[in-house]
């Protein structure tokens, strides 16, 4: 294994929101480490807490209703304890973010050139006009926008979705951040454009060695770009694995369900996808014990443990993988091998 170089260390991150209906526990006790030049994927369905995890890393959540605990360390600084000023220094320069919907992520009232320039100028207040202008053109060229001099004077609505996402990426990368958080960066795009955007992110990563945290619900995207994967369910990490291991020997019943729901061309039951029975639980009112137990086919095998005890992450199968499940390791590996493709 290559020498690891952690750039982001998240420990016991929990986020809850106060709503009129009660307290929503969106993220519970999530820990992970992001290494330089590597891509970590977070996968899960809507409401699994993956996007909240992403936005709380930069403390972008509503400060009035959200309560956050745990620590998020970037280059030795704990962002959770940082002052507003320190936080502002880090946002956009050390950590940058790409949002899900490029249609709404750009300010419609300013030209894209001005928006890229603004991102650069915040962290380079002494840069000259021509330097900023050069940087803008340089970034637009890098993210593959043809005719950058001219197009920098255009407004966001004059670009297609894919082109806008490229501009969002240009804004994110203009200050050469160490960490890029990509929150479903391709979900709102056409399939052909999705691949282009992922390729772009990976080639820029190869160039500047940034770490990418990729949030997605798309296992195909994960398989393509991520090295390590966290599977989230109801605000908790239920499985942590290398990407190969996750696809070969998944070790959590929820992962089995997710993989079963992916279509493939050589599938013997073509035309019929397996689904996970039931719906994700309400975060207002989580099931006791393992939050997945009401939907889990195997919960009856554990003498009621699943209903009462929250399982913690433990190694069940391959060396670098861990899973939060009450099933015995042997049983997990047996089923995992069957499900894995």
């Amino acid at each position, binding site marked *: 294994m290559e020498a690891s170089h952690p750039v982001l260390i998240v420990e016991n991150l929990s986020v809850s929101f106060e709503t009129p209906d009660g307290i929503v526990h969106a993220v519970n006790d999530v820990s992970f480490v992001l290494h330089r030049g590597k891509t970590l994927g977070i996968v899960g369905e809507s409401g699994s807490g993956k996007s909240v995890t992403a*936005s709380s890393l*930069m403390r*972008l959540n509503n400060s*009035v209703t959200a309560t956050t605990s745990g620590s998020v360390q970037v280059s030795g600084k704990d962002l959770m304890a940082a002052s*507003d000023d320190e936080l*502002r*220094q*880090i*946002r*956009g*320069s050390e950590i*940058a*973010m790409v*949002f*899900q*919907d490029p249609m*709404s*992520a*750009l*300010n*419609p*009232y*300013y030209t894209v050139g001005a928006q890229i320039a*603004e*991102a650069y100028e*915040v*962290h380079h207040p002494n840069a000259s006009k021509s330097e900023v202008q050069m940087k803008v053109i340089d970034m637009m060229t890098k993210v593959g926008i043809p005719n950058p001099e001219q197009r920098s004077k255009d*407004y966001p*609505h*004059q670009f297609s979705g894919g082109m806008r996402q490229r501009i*969002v990426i240009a*804004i994110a990368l203009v200050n050469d951040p160490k960490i890029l958080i990509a929150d479903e960066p391709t979900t709102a795009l056409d399939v052909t454009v999705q691949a282009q955007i992922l390729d772009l992110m990976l080639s820029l990563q190869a160039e500047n060695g940034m770490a990418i945290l990729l949030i997605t619900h798309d296992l195909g995207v994960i398989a393509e770009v991520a090295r390590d994967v966290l599977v989230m369910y109801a605000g908790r990490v239920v499985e942590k694995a290398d990407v190969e291991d996750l696809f070969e020997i998944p070790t959590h019943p929820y992962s089995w369900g997710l993989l079963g729901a992916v279509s493939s061309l050589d599938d013997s039951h073509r035309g019929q996808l397996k689904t996970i029975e039931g719906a994700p639980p309400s975060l207002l009112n989580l099931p006791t014990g393992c939050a997945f137990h009401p939907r889990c086919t195997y919960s009856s095998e554990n003498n009621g443990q699943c209903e009462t005890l929250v399982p913690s992450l433990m190694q069940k199968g391959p060396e670098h993988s861990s899973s939060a499940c009450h099933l015995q390791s042997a049983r997990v590996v047996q089923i995992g091998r069957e499900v894995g493709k």
Partner: protein
Amino acid sequence: MFLFITRRLFFALLLLFAVSVVTYLLFSALPVDPAALTCGKNCKPELIAANRVRLGYDKPLVEQYWLFLKGIFVGRDYGMGQAAFSCPAPSLGYSFSQHECVTTLIGKTFPVTAFLSIGAFILWMFIGVGSGAIAALNKGKWQDRLANAFTAIGVSLPTFYVGLLVLFSVVIWLGILPFPHYESPLEDPVKFLNAMILPWITLAVLSAASYTRLTRNGMLEAMNEDFVRLGVAKGLTRRVVLRKYVMRSAMVPIVTIAGLDFAALLGGAIITESVFSLPGMGKLSIRAVVESDLPVLVGTTMVAAVFIVLANVIVDISYGFLDPRVREK
């Protein structure tokens, strides 16, 4: 853009023409004999008949309208020989109860209305946008609740009530200000301010209420936009995010509505002017209604219509500058 503006202006003229036809016909259909109003109670029938001819009310309606329309562009002469007099272009007719050209009357009263409108407008934009912004930034806190209460009270109170309340409390009960008496700002600025301050406050407080709500909701909506989050994620200061992202977005509809509201006010703040006895266009209109002074009514209505139509055009054009997404089309 040029094409857009010319087309917009052409339709504006067409609309004004239609407004003039409707207004003229509507007021002519009133069961009043305009000629009979020219000379008080004990008037000889001969004089009425003479005046009817002099003012052109003996002619068919279409011709009367044509003379009215022509008068706007070339002025209008009334009567012949010794008794002849004329209203130069743009003539909107001749008031037989005030014995002056309508244009002259409007020229005299319009500055009052304009001063009233401009002052009130500035005040209400400050109060409305300011309190709305404070409410949005303190959503759910006491500032927000106070602004909400202000909005509810402001939009539901009628002008005449607030006007009288202000007048009674400040002038009569507290005696802080003398009773307002309008003077031109050029002649007596102190008296002018004294006469204007209460009507300004009255109009501003009432109109500001809806702007408070508009600003608050616009800002709250903008704050949830992805692009505002991206602004924060860039590392921009809160102040810059609020100015370039939140306010910029919230201001677009506010500017639109403010333009229209201001234009409507320029047509005469009838109630406010009456309560504070300001000799503005609203007062002129009211007097014309009471005295069935048709030419004045038609004139003030037309002027008000011009302002509103013009404001619509300006707002449409400025929308293109405010929102780049509209510019293309």
